[in-house]
């Protein structure tokens, strides 16, 4: 019975994720797209919880789903017209898009098939400590380089936004 419920939960989550992901692409309203994307991210976060990866699930909520709020603001500010809802920029390259998406799916299927999946799922009960240990001991150099790069991007963005005249 436990197995059955677990499978059921997985398929419900998968349907939510796929459905909202379709909605992101199909919706003609940019803000609706962004909000559906939040729903999709929350679904993915739930999937992490379902797999006992608490930290990654919380991360998904915090960074991805929280970040969408800023995306919505951008969408409203950049596309809101004086009349009617903001539109999604659509174009007519349906065949090209179909080809690209098909290729991507093929690559993904190849990756999924060729990746060896370890038998018997095991997640350490204390993911946070292990992640911290990896980031701050084993991979300290890449971690610091990434942090410096992000800081440089942040400072650069502020300087670009402020312009030459001030400060």
């Amino acid at each position: 019975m436990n197995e059955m419920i677990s499978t059921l939960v997985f398929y419900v989550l998968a349907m939510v994720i796929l459905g909202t992901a379709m909605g992101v692409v199909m919706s003609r309203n940019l803000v609706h797209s962004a909000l559906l994307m939040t729903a999709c991210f929350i679904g993915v976060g739930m999937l992490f919880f379902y797999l006992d990866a608490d930290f990654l699930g919380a991360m998904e909520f915090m960074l991805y789903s929280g970040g969408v709020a800023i995306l919505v603001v951008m969408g409203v500010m950049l596309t809101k017209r004086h009349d009617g809802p903001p539109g999604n920029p659509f174009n007519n390259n349906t065949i090209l898009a179909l080809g690209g998406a098909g290729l991507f799916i093929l690559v993904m299927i190849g990756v999924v098939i060729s990746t060896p999946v370890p038998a018997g799922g095991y997640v350490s009960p204390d993911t946070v400590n292990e992640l911290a240990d990896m980031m701050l001991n084993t991979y300290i150099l890449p971690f610091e380089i990434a942090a410096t790069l992000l800081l440089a991007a942040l400072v650069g963005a502020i300087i670009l936004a402020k312009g030459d005249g001030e400060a």
Partner: protein
Amino acid sequence: MHSGILYSLGQSLREILTSLIGVPILVDLLMTIICATILLLIMATSALVFTLGERKICAFIQVRIGPNRVGPGGLLQSVADMLKLMDKEDIVPRGIDKWLWVLSPILLLVPSALIYAFFPFDDGVILADVNVGLFLLIAITSQTVLPFLMGGYASNSKYSLIGGMRTVAQMLGYEVPMVFALMGIVMITGSLKMSAIVEAQSDVWFIVLQPLAFLIYIITALVESNRPPFNIVEGESEIIAGPFTEYTGMRWALFFLAEFSNLMCIGILTTTLFLGGWHGPDFLPGFCWFWIKTFLCVLFYQWVGWTFPRARVDSMLSFGWKVLLPIALINVLLTGVGIYVYNVM
């Protein structure tokens, strides 16, 4: 392992259910439903009590009389308010984004209710004691921004949209200092688990060890829950209640309920993170201490709101980025040095 009245009550309830049903997963489900119902009842009742406080005690502090006609001394005023809200006409304005507009107040309640699962009310009395408790809690609280923005956008009104935008700006500006302030606590505890954080305060409360973080936390908590003097999202005199300008009746009441739920939530969080949670002298059981501290915190937060005038938007945002964030970072550094020195000695 655990002691306390609430814990043994829950245990005996579980034993009775197990002997009645026998299937462990169904017992778990039933127990969760019972706990969730109790928490929702607490949430709804607290809204009633806090409304009364908002009107009676606020009037006392501001040297006014306040409501004094309904019931003895105006005690039934909040019940009357509730009946009035249910009776109001449900006005749906034209030109709105119908689905988002309807969903916004409902979705707003979801994160506010969800976080109650992570609060340790007594020794061992916590619905979900996950490993990343505090982090997950912050992640879920930050989700309250989107429904506000949704409502502001969907109302198709200038004031609402401005209010929605302000939510995002203040979330960005104050979430970061709050997380850094709480980092000090996590560093001392060495765990993100809520029960471990309370356990670590059995001797010394974190308000003593982390006074700077406590100050930052109470400021950011007021901002995050849209309480005056930092309620720039509503700003009745500037943007006419912001995201919920266009809502009436029960839909508006949902915004109201979420606000009071958030108020109690920051009270509980202050208690749990800084004031020792359910710890206290032995003559009262743990959950009594917990609620006494929580209500004192809520009273304090409301008191601040009744006393100070509303802050200006721009000064508030620059305060968050230019003052609170550096102080929070310094606090992290000091805590690190402190822990190092303590370990060496």
